[in-house]
């Protein structure tokens, strides 16, 4: 389990400042994967946003038109899609704050790896709160 080992040793190995090789923040491991996930979640959120503005614009067409489209969002398959969307938003939000801290906080680059696991932790807590709540709402809507 090299991953766990590196994780526990990370604070110690980071301690001597200025000894780390430069330019490793975005190559491999946490730095790179957070960047990859930030891009993928960003693309997904952007395309949902385009659709979401258009579906909301239907309130200007007719109440029936808007309600018809909203009823498709209450379908269980769409409910799982909304869960994935909220998961993408939560990751993008928390990792975005991590990026801001890396850029503006003096110790940000030093703690970027720790902050990545804080992002994952906050994401798990957020999803643990949201997923049951949303799926109960979606699946109790079935048959209506």
């Amino acid at each position, binding site marked *: 389990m090299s991953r766990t080992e590196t994780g526990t040793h990370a604070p110690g190995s980071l301690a001597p400042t200025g000894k780390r090789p430069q330019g490793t923040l975005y190559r491999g491991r946490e730095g790179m994967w957070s960047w990859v996930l930030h*891009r993928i979640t*960003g*693309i997904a*959120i*952007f395309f949902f*946003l*385009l659709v979401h*503005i*258009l579906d*909301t*614009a239907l*309130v*200007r067409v*007719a*109440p*029936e038109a*808007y*309600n018809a489209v*909203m009823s498709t*969002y*209450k379908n269980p398959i769409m*409910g799982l899609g*909304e869960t994935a969307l*909220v998961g993408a*938003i939560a990751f993008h*939000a928390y990792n*975005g*704050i991590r*990026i*801001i801290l890396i*850029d*503006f906080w003096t110790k940000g680059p030093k703690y970027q790896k720790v902050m990545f696991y804080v992002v994952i932790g906050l994401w798990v807590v957020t999803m643990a709160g*949201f997923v049951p*709540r*949303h799926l109960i*709402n*979606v699946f*109790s*809507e079935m048959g209506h």
Partner: protein
Amino acid sequence: MATTIEAPRSPYSRAPRSRGINWEKWGWMYMRASGLVLVVLIFGHLIVNLVLGDGIKAIDFAFVGGKWSNPFWQVWDCLMLWLAMIHGANGMRTLVNDYASHRTTRGILKGALLFSVIVLITLGTLVIFTFDPCPAGAPADLLASFCSAS
């Protein structure tokens, strides 16, 4: 024309910038500033619409009517629309610059992004501020309860 050779070990200096605004720098600042505001706006949006009350079950025309008859939610949603569309399109612009290798492809994709931003921000803003929660002739059971109150 004589070439000046700098003294060895003289620090690297960038070519002096041409005058004008450094748009890339302000774009970079915008992503971070708007990102912080969007965290608050979108988490609030998700909590109010998907977590509180009956969540997604409650979302219909009457729900939107109730929210957008309040200027607070009109401003909230309008701010969210502008900040998110520009943030998202600028992020997509970064991806186009990174992955589209041909100049023409980049031009077409970035043109499409600009087009969609202008159209959707205009459409969304108009929808938020010209919205009528109680349209004449619509069945009363589809509208917010305050429509039939008077």
